[in-house]
C-alpha cells in the first residue's frame, strides 16, 4: 500500500489499545505526514453561518453581508489551505477518482451526525460529467453520479471567477421534475464554500419549494 497523495509506502502500527479494542483493521489511505497538512476546523469557534475557522465564536464579516438572505447554516470540515488546494487539483481537475477515498470516511461520519430527511448534493454540469466522469461531491458519498434532486444549467465554473463575479452569479439550479421537498429537513453537501453563492442559491431554491430547513456541509471553507 502506498499513500494516495505522496505515493510513499504506508505503514500501519499495531498498538496495544487498538489490539484490545477488537476493532477491524482500519486501512489508512494517506500517510500521517500528508494528513497533517489538512487543517480541521474547530466547530466551537467557527462562524455559525458559513463554518469558517476563526479564533473566537462570532458571525464573520462575510456572513454579516448576507444578512438579508434567508437563514442558512453551513458546517465545514477543513480550512481551504495549500494542501486542500493541491488535493482538489488532483481529485477534481486532474480527475483522479481514487482520491475520493481520502475524505470518504470523514464526510460520511459528519453527515451521519446531522439530522436530515434527505441529503442533497450540488450537481455538476452535463459537460463536466461528460469529461470528468464523476461528481466530486457524490464521490465522497460513494456513488460519483449526480443524485437527481437538483439540476444545473451550463455555467462558467465558479473557480474561474473573482469574488464580484461569483456573487453576481444568477440562480443556476432547478429542481428535478417530480421531486417533492415539502416539510423536509435537507442537508446540502458541496466541496468548497468560498463566497457562499452556490450553496445559498441551492438552499433558497429548496426553501422556496417547501423545504423545512437547509443545512450545508462542505469539505473546505
Amino acid at each position, binding site marked *: 500500500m502506498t499513500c494516495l497523495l505522496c505515493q510513499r509506502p504506508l505503514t500501519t502500527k499495531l498498538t496495544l489499545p487498538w489490539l484490545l479494542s477488537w476493532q477491524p483493521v482500519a486501512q489508512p489511505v494517506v500517510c500521517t505526514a500528508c494528513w497533517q497538512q489538512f487543517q480541521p476546523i474547530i466547530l466551537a469557534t467557527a462562524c455559525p453561518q458559513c463554518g469558517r475557522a476563526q479564533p473566537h465564536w462570532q458571525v464573520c464579516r462575510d456572513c454579516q453581508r448576507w444578512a438579508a438572505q434567508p437563514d442558512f447554516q453551513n458546517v465545514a470540515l477543513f480550512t481551504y489551505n495549500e494542501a486542500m488546494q493541491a488535493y482538489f487539483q488532483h481529485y477534481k481537475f486532474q480527475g*483522479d*477518482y481514487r482520491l475520493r477515498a481520502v475524505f470518504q470516511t470523514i464526510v460520511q461520519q459528519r453527515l451521519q451526525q446531522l439530522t436530515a430527511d434527505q441529503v442533497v448534493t450540488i450537481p455538476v454540469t452535463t459537460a463536466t460529467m461528460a469529461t470528468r*466522469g*464523476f461528481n466530486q461531491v457524490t464521490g465522497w458519498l460513494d456513488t*460519483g453520479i449526480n443524485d437527481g434532486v437538483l439540476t444545473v444549467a451550463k455555467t462558467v465554473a465558479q473557480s474561474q471567477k473573482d469574488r464580484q463575479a461569483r456573487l453576481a452569479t444568477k440562480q443556476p439550479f432547478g429542481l428535478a421534475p417530480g421531486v417533492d421537498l415539502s416539510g423536509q429537513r435537507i442537508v446540502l453537501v458541496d466541496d468548497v464554500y468560498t463566497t457562499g453563492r452556490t450553496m445559498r442559491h441551492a438552499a433558497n431554491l429548496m426553501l422556496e419549494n417547501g423545504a423545512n430547513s437547509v443545512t450545508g456541509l462542505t469539505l473546505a471553507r
Partner: protein
Amino acid sequence: MQPKDLYGRQLLLTAAELATLPADVQSRAGLTITASQIQCQRCGSTLDHRTAQLPQKQFYCYQCLNLGRVSSLTPLYHIPEPNEFPQRPKLTWTGHLTSAQAVCAADLQRAFAAHERHLLWAVTGAGKTEMLFPGLAWALQQGWRVAVASPRVDVCLELAPRLQAAFADTTVAVLHGRQTAAYAYRQLTVCTTHQLLRFRAAFDVLVIDEVDAFPFAANQQLYYAVDHAVKPHGAVLYLTATPSDALLRQTRRGQLKLSYLPLRFHQHLLPTIQVTLLPKWWSAIAKGRLPAKLRRWLGAYATSGQRFLIFVPRIDQLTVVQAAIQRQFPTMSGQTVYSADPDRLAKVQQMRQEQVQYLITTTILERGVTFPGIDVLVLGADDPVFSTAALVQIAGRVGRSQQRPTGLVRFVSGSYTRAIKQAQRQIKLVNRKGRRLRDDLSTVPTTAND
C-alpha cells in the same frame, strides 16, 4: 492548434482544440477494455478494474495522470508523422573525434541506416554525445525525425545546448515536465523519456541516453513509451556507461547490437575509487562535527579552492552535512540540491558557472552532468540507494576535462558492500581494457589516422 502540433503525437484534446484541426484527424480509444483486463493505450499499463473505475461503467488510467487523464470518456488524437522538413540541417560542429570514437560513430550511423536496435557502451566521459553527431547529421540529412531522450531532466538540459550548437541551422525542441514553453514541431527533439508517452510512431531515430538511470530502468511504462514513440521500423540507440544485466543479455541474444568504448576522449583512464571506512561518520556529522579525515580533506579544498561534489544517501541528510561543513569552513560557499528542490535547475547552473565551490546532493546528480575538474566525495557509500551503476557513474563525474583529466574519488563508508566492490572491479576492468586500447592506438602508425 496547428495540424503539425499533432504530427506523430497522441494527445487528449478539448473540443475547442479539436475544432481548429482538419476533419481527418485520427482518433482511437484511450483505454482498451475487455472483461479480464484494462490497458492504457498511452502508457501501456495494465489497470486494476476496481481502482480504475469511474461511475457509470467508465474507466480511467491512474498511472499516467500527470500528462492529462486518459479515460474511456475521451479518445486520443493522432496525425501520422509526415516528415515535413523542408530544410536539411548540416552538422556545424567542428571538433574532431579520436580514432576510437570515430569507429563507434561509424557503427552508430550504420545502425541508424539499417534501422537497428543498438547499444553504445562507453565509459563515463568517453564523449558519447560527440559520437552521436555524424549519425544524427546523416539521419537529419535524410529528412528523418530524430529524438534524443533521457530519463533525467538535468541530462536533457545539458544535452540540448550541445546539440543546438552542433546543428546551428535548425532549432532543437526541448520537452520536459517543468518547462513553460509551448510544444513546437521540429526535426530534432530533446526530451525526457516521460514525454515520449505523448508521441506515437513519430521518430525514425530515437536515442535513449543514460538508459540505466532511474526512473527508466525497470519501468515498463517507459519501455512501452520508447517502443511506441519510434516508428515501426525506426532505429533505437541506447547509450550508457553502466548497462544493466538485462541489456547485456539482449546483446548476447543478438536482439541488440553492441559498440564498446572503454577509453575516455582524452585517453586517460578512469579515476579509481578510494574507500575510507568510517562507520561513525553520520553520528559525528549529526552532532555537527566533521570526522578528522573529512576535516583534513575539506580543509585542503578550502585552501586550494578545488571544487567538489558531495553525495549523501538521503535528502534529510543534506542540510545536516551542509551545516557541519559551514560551521567548520564558513568561507567555502556551497549549496544543497535534491530532486524536488524548487531551485534545482538554477543551483546546478550556478555550480556549472563556478559561482559556488561545492554542491551537496543525492543520487540525482550521479550522471549526465559535467562540472569540469571536480573531485567527488560520497558519504555513506554503503547505503542501498547507491547501486553499482550509481557508484560507477558518481566516480565518472571526476576527471572529465582535458585540463584536469584526473581527480579524487573518495567513498566514506561503514563497510565494503558488494556494490562498492563491484564498482571498483568494474572500473578496474574498464581501465584494463582502456589501457590495452590505448596501447593499440599508440602502436598504429600516425599516417593511418589521417
